[in-house]
């Protein structure tokens, strides 16, 4: 007990808030506190492809373009370039050339790779380092060669770029370079400057051209991703020194960029720290947004130089309960809302509008919502002889099920209303997606009283009967219709969800067997096409209809080509329209093509269109300029923190409450008294019981 009291006194000496998880010297500083759940796997821009990684890489690396932070629909703007590269058709459209001109004067973050003497470090020196930043640091100007070097890295034999396959189809000579590099000796630094890449040309120090096979208008979106961010050759050479990898000093873990921040502490098990890049050129906060942004205070910093915070501290929180409680205590500046605590944070009005609970409002917490550029869907396997194919029988069966499955109810029950029923594959905010009455799926919904209403179940039953399954039985054999859903289980908590699925099909007297499996087996079934029904999702790479509609393109059929069309859907007219649509810019003509494509797939119903998830995020009153952006992950430079307000609120919310603990200790001490008395009594007894 004495030790505990001493410990309490020790804590009392630590400052006002005993439960502050951060070092005392960080108090009052312009630091943004955030969390990460999954540890990143790769921070090399040539490999990194997940959101968990993008939150780090996109603060450090600067591809040529970025998305406008405030405007919607999403709009590309220059990041390091002068203007947006425009496609130029050459040789009669056989090739397309993009000329990328970067701005002069952009400099890299301080890094040891830019100091010549650091290329010949001894193993003892390397062993003694805790971070590479203990070495002498240097910098240099960003040039077009760094972008070219990174494009060549896509073909590096020891790196696994997920877009090598895709880009090899388009960038002239990338495939040949990949084959050539494979023949090079393995191990050691592979200096890619020595190898030429036919489709990438250096024009001058600040300009390069990329030559693509045919036309690929979506290429410009890829120029906003870290895959096309510059990597200095010096960084590769520096990290390839013997002894570096054993210390986990690799380019995969220590990014080197020109962005607003640099990664200075790298412990993916516990804490990652980004610090302001002292060489960052400064970038003005945007002066325009969408309607409502000015009123929301999002333009108050217009024209001011970013970034606004000096440091961003990411702490690893694997469990949702501590994460949520630390947010409520003010130790994280923003948080998502875990399902378990949704009711504590948000209340949904009778009209269906989401608002904060009084408790959250009293803390000045702000709620930010946005619809993700994502779709979660329920697919039919086109190769299945019951639900798949172009027969009228199968189509009507799919349409009947499409009506019966009440996604509105699913969203209300399982997502706390955090979703929007999808009417087609396109997510809201994507060109081609129509809203309101024009946007409803006539197969499943009707427009009534100013809103989309699901068609009555009787219509589904009629369709089912027309499909040859009256009352859920095969009209010829009398056998009940049994369908099989393959899904990835997450444990006993899935039971209500599975029951719900069974109930939806039971409305049509269809029996649903759920084959709950792990992700690997599920993937295997999808690859082999042995599933009948399945549930999957897609998160857009870029805000273009091509990135959603290609999921139903015949050339992407999973079984045939291992592409992304998991339903193996095939429709010649859709495929032909897709080929035309993908190569033309957003225009009435493109809209017309998309309308027709959407009409085809709604009628064929290879998916139940599912829903688009809504993100509900909370931020404390002291955090400014926060606006959800599903495309841009380089958002930290825009954020501002009112440090004084945060300190005051933290102190107010975290005053230590000692009396219950002292009471508890006294209780324990007092409970020992009878035992002590009994002991002394026993010791004094002449005869003792045995």
């Amino acid at each position, binding site marked *: 007990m004495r030790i505990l009291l001493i*410990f*309490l006194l*020790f*804590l009392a000496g*630590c400052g006002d808030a*005993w*439960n*502050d*998880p951060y*070092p005392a010297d960080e108090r009052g500083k312009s630091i943004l506190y955030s969390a990460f759940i999954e540890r990143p*796997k*790769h921070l090399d821009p040539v490999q990194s*492809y*997940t959101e968990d990684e993008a939150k780090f890489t996109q603060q450090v690396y600067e591809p040529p373009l970025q998305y406008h932070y405030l405007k919607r629909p999403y709009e590309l703007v220059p990041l390091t370039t002068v203007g947006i590269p425009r496609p130029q058709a050459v040789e009669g459209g056989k090739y397309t050339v993009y000329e990328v001109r970067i701005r002069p004067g952009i400099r890299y973050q301080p890094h040891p790779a830019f100091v010549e003497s650091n290329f010949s470090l001894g193993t003892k020196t390397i062993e003694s380092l805790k971070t590479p930043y203990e070495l002498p640091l240097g910098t240099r100007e960003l040039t077009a060669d760094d972008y070219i070097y990174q494009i060549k890295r896509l073909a590096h034999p020891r790196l*696994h770029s*997920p*877009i*090598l*396959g*895709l880009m090899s189809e388009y960038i002239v000579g990338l495939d040949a370079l990949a084959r050539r590099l494979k023949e090079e000796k393995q191990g050691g630094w592979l200096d890619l400057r020595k190898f030429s890449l036919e489709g990438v040309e250096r024009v001058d120090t600040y300009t390069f051209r990329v030559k693509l096979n045919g036309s690929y208008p979506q290429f410009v979106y890829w120029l906003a991703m870290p895959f096309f961010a510059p990597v200095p050759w010096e960084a590769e050479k520096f990290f390839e020194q013997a002894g570096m*990898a*054993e*210390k*986990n000093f*690799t380019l*995969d*873990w220590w990014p080197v960029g020109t962005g607003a921040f640099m990664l200075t502490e790298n*412990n993916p*098990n*516990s804490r990652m720290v980004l610090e302001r890049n002292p060489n960052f050129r400064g970038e003005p906060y945007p002066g325009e947004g969408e309607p409502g942004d000015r009123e929301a205070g999002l333009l108050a910093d217009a024209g001011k130089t970013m970034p606004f915070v000096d440091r961003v501290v990411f*702490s*690893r*929180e*694997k*469990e949702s*309960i*501590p994460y949520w*409680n*630390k947010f*409520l*205590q003010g130790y994280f500046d923003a948080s998502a809302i875990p399902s378990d605590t949704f009711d504590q944070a948000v209340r949904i009005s009778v009209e269906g509008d989401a608002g904060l609970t009084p408790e959250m409002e009293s803390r000045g917490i702000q709620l930010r919502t946005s619809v993700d550029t994502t779709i979660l869907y329920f697919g039919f396997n086109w190769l299945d002889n019951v639900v798949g194919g172009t027969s009228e029988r199968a189509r009507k069966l799919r349409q009947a099920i499409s009506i019966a499955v009440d996604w509105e109810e699913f969203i209300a029950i399982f997502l706390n209303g955090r979703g929007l029923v999808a009417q087609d594959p396109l997510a809201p905010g994507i060109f081609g997606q129509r809203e309101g009455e024009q946007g409803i799926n006539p197969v499943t919904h009707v427009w009534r009283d100013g809103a989309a209403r699901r068609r009555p179940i009787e219509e589904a039953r009629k369709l089912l009967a027309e499909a040859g399954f009256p009352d859920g039985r095969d009209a010829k054999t009398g056998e009940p219709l049994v369908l099989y859903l393959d899904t990835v289980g997450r444990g006993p908590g899935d039971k209500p969800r599975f029951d719900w699925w069974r109930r939806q099909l039971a409305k049509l007297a269809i029996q649903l067997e759920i084959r709950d499996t*792990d992700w*690997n087996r599920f*993937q295997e079934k999808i690859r082999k096409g042995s599933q009948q029904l399945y549930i999957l999702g897609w998160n857009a*790479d870029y805000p273009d209809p091509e990135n959603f509609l290609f999921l139903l393109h015949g050339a992407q059929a999973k079984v045939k080509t*291992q592409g*992304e069309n998991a339903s193996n859907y095939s429709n010649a007219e859709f495929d032909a329209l897709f080929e035309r649509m993908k190569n033309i810019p957003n225009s009435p003509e493109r809209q017309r093509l998309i309308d027709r494509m959407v009409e085809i797939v709604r009628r064929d119903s290879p998916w139940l269109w599912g829903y688009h998830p809504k993100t509900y995020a909370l931020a404390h009153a002291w955090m400014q300029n926060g606006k959800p952006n599903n495309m841009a992950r380089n958002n930290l430079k825009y954020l501002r923190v009112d440090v004084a307000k945060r300190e005051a609120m933290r102190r107010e919310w*975290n005053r*230590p*409450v*000692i009396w*219950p*603990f002292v009471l508890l200790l006294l209780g324990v001490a007092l409970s020992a008294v*009878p*035992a002590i008395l*009994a*002991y002394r009594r*026993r*010791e004094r007894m002449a005869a003792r019981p*045995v």
Partner: protein
Amino acid sequence: MLAYVVRRALYAIPILVGINLITFALFFLVNTPDDMARMQLGQKRVTPEAIQKWKAERGYDKPLFFNDGSLTNTIFFEKSIRLFAFDFGRAEDNRDIANEIRQRMGPSLALAIPVFLVGLAVNITFALGMAFFRATYLDLWGVVLCVAMMSISTLFYIIGGQYLISKLWHLVPISGYAGGADAAKFVVLPALIGVFGGIGAGSRWYRTLFLEEMTRDYVRTARAKGLGEGAVMFRHVLKNAMIPILTGVVAVIPLLFMGSLLSESFFGIPGLGSYTIDAIQAQDFAVVRAMVFIGSVLYILGLLLTDLSYTLVDPRVRLD
């Protein structure tokens, strides 16, 4: 004694081979090298060529156990043989496993040592108390309390402790970790919960040991000679109960390095327990294999130390 130690070390080799074989078989029963490649390469735009390349680079393109009559040119042999030289290689995310283990050992021990030592002291004290008051209401209610505490899930203690001490009373951080002296404020709550959660089972076990000792002739003799009950308990019963206590205690000392799977995850302590859980979730066979191997080695070491410790507490024991 040296011969005994050498003999036990040699016995350990087939045991470790067996454990490695079982780990390998279990892992590849549910994961194929293709699954591992897909997990590491991500879910989007993964081509069959990329999977083949990933497997070939890491040696997962070979057969598991037999390769055209050869036992050596297989995944099992190539992945296992280096372990015996304590060369753990790289995790699938390309980080050096040995370096990770070195970094994570500290946080694991920072939590495990206080839980072990304080827990041992508390459990023995509580058990001695119950044994002292045997067959009284204090003993009865002590046992009832122990059974009740044993029946409650560790998760309940963790969530309840975090709620009361961190959320309501704001006494310590709810989760997180820092090195050096700052570790104390992060470790105190999980350590307290670890000790508290272990009282039920630990105290009951030690109480049983003490009660058994108390029926021995030497105890009766001590009492007949007029020794106080306190002296009997502390000087004689406790000392003679050391062999069964050591059996349980010394064997787990090396395993303290392995950390706690649950506490480390909930309290954000970047230790080896958390590392193992992450590796299982990420299907990182290199890390799983290394952690199981180290766990086995430490367990064998613990059992050896237990045997050696008998000679220290009981001069009659000889290891030949």
